[in-house]
């Protein structure tokens, strides 16, 4: 029973983290129609930004505050350089170009940060652990990551629900042409959305760095799992991404304990099952 509770906690925390990464992916996919294979690279960017910025500023939260705008600007630049050429291209070309980006980003990472694994310190005030059983404690920072993810998710919902830019994004999702006809330059809107997607992935990477450690290729696992989440939730649906991410988090946590032999199959089997019963995902518009 205790194990079950702990696994729920683990599943939720892991799920929230991948939600953050997947929400950017689903946003970019839903509104821009771009299959972005390089999304994992932006998670990696976040992790390495976390490494560098934390060493400069001494605190992970300052790194988060500084890292998000950096990632945002980086995302805008990438959109301008590469992604905007893809809007009217088919999915295959998007896949090819963003795969090329992965190779470039991986190599840039190697040049800038080297190949050693690194770790990012947890701030002293969050380094405590909460006693869960007589032998096991749950680290406070993990709870904090869960909280940060919830906060960022709430902030994102707030932006999307309450601000003008959020209204434009929602409008763009349902009727791109009408948005343009109302005087809003969708080129700039799209750049913003892509950059926001990059910033979200990077934010996930930044907060995850202290518990994940930072190493080359950190983004690839996140990429695949994010795609799984997007597909389960339904393309373009933030709500779907949240539900999908939590489902995956819990399935992963319980799969490991109860079906250890098939733990890595569970996630994909879940996705296949969802697609067979609901071909457009849980919250997708078919």
């Amino acid at each position, binding site marked *: 029973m205790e194990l079950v509770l702990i696994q729920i906690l683990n599943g939720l925390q892991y799920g929230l983290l991948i939600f953050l990464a997947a929400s950017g992916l689903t946003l970019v996919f839903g509104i821009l129609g771009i299959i972005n294979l390089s999304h994992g690279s932006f998670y990696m960017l976040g992790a390495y930004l976390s490494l560098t910025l934390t060493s400069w500023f001494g605190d992970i939260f300052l790194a988060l505050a500084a890292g998000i705008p950096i990632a945002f600007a980086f995302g805008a630049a990438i959109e301008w350089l590469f992604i905007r050429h893809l809007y009217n291209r088919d999915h295959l070309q998007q896949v090819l170009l963003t795969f090329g980006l992965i190779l470039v980003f991986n190599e840039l990472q190697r040049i800038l940060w080297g190949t050693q694994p690194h770790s990012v310190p947890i701030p002293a005030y969050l380094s405590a652990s909460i006693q869960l059983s007589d032998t096991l404690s749950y680290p406070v920072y993990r709870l904090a990551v869960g909280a940060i993810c919830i906060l960022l998710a709430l902030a994102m919902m707030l932006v999307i629900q309450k601000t*003008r830019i959020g*209204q*434009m994004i*929602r*409008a763009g*999702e*349902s*009727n791109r*042409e*009408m*948005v*343009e*006809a*109302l*005087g*809003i*330059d*969708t*080129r700039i809107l799209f750049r913003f959305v892509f950059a926001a997607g990059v910033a979200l992935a990077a934010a996930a990477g930044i907060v995850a760095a202290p518990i994940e450690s930072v190493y080359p290729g950190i983004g690839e696992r996140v990429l695949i799992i994010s795609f799984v989440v997007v597909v389960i939730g339904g393309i373009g649906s933030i709500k779907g991404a949240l539900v999908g991410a939590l489902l995956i988090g819990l399935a992963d946590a319980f799969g490991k304990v109860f079906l250890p032999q098939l733990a890595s199959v569970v996630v994909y089997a879940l996705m296949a099952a969802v697609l067979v019963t609901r071909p457009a995902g849980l919250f997708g518009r078919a």
Partner: protein
Amino acid sequence: MNAAATAEDTAAPVLQADAVNAYYGQSHILRNVSIRVMPHEAVSLMGRNGMGKTTLLRTLMGLLRPRSGAIRLRGADMTGERASAVARAGIAFVPEDRGVFPNLTVEENLTFAARPGRDARADWTLERVYGLFPRLAERRSNWGNQLSGGEQKMLAIGRALMTNPEIILLDEATEGLAPKVRDEIWATLRLITEAGIASIVVDKNLDDLFELAHRHMVIVKGEIVFDGPTAALRADEALIHRHLGV
């Protein structure tokens, strides 16, 4: 209002298209279309389905790039500009399907693209739009997809007004609406015209169009076959029968 329109007749047109040709893929949809709309003037655009009415409006709006010809707004060349630039320059578009954003509330639909016009004193505000359509005020926090067809049309018109345009392009102003709602829309369009906003209105109800607009254009197979005042059109029964009636 008649007097105003007459006085402006000598002035420069607010919107002008010269010899515009437009295509969808291989199909030649607009053939050498030339139109002009004067400030404060409501003009009707008639023709059967598939004749190019919507395409003309979309081309004027910048949603479809003409292959040749020129489009000018108050003399400024808008040919080939993005729709967003055209909109900011002062053209608003109310599409046939209304284009209401289903996942935005009524108020959000109205405000998110709001923009001051050239003459800030006379600007359309939320209050003014709600004054025009009290029903929208009642439903301000409803989602776009919770509205009836008529309410959606009102919202689309209100949203266009909020951008404080020089001219509004209205596609199928009242199609598919209940009679009472149609009356309401026509009344509103007259108010808007009186407020000094020019318009091109597409509809199938000749009587209402005759009441609203003083100049009419008939488009057949992508060509403007008639452009003239109400009396001239009324007089041409053959034209009405051939291209507009049963």
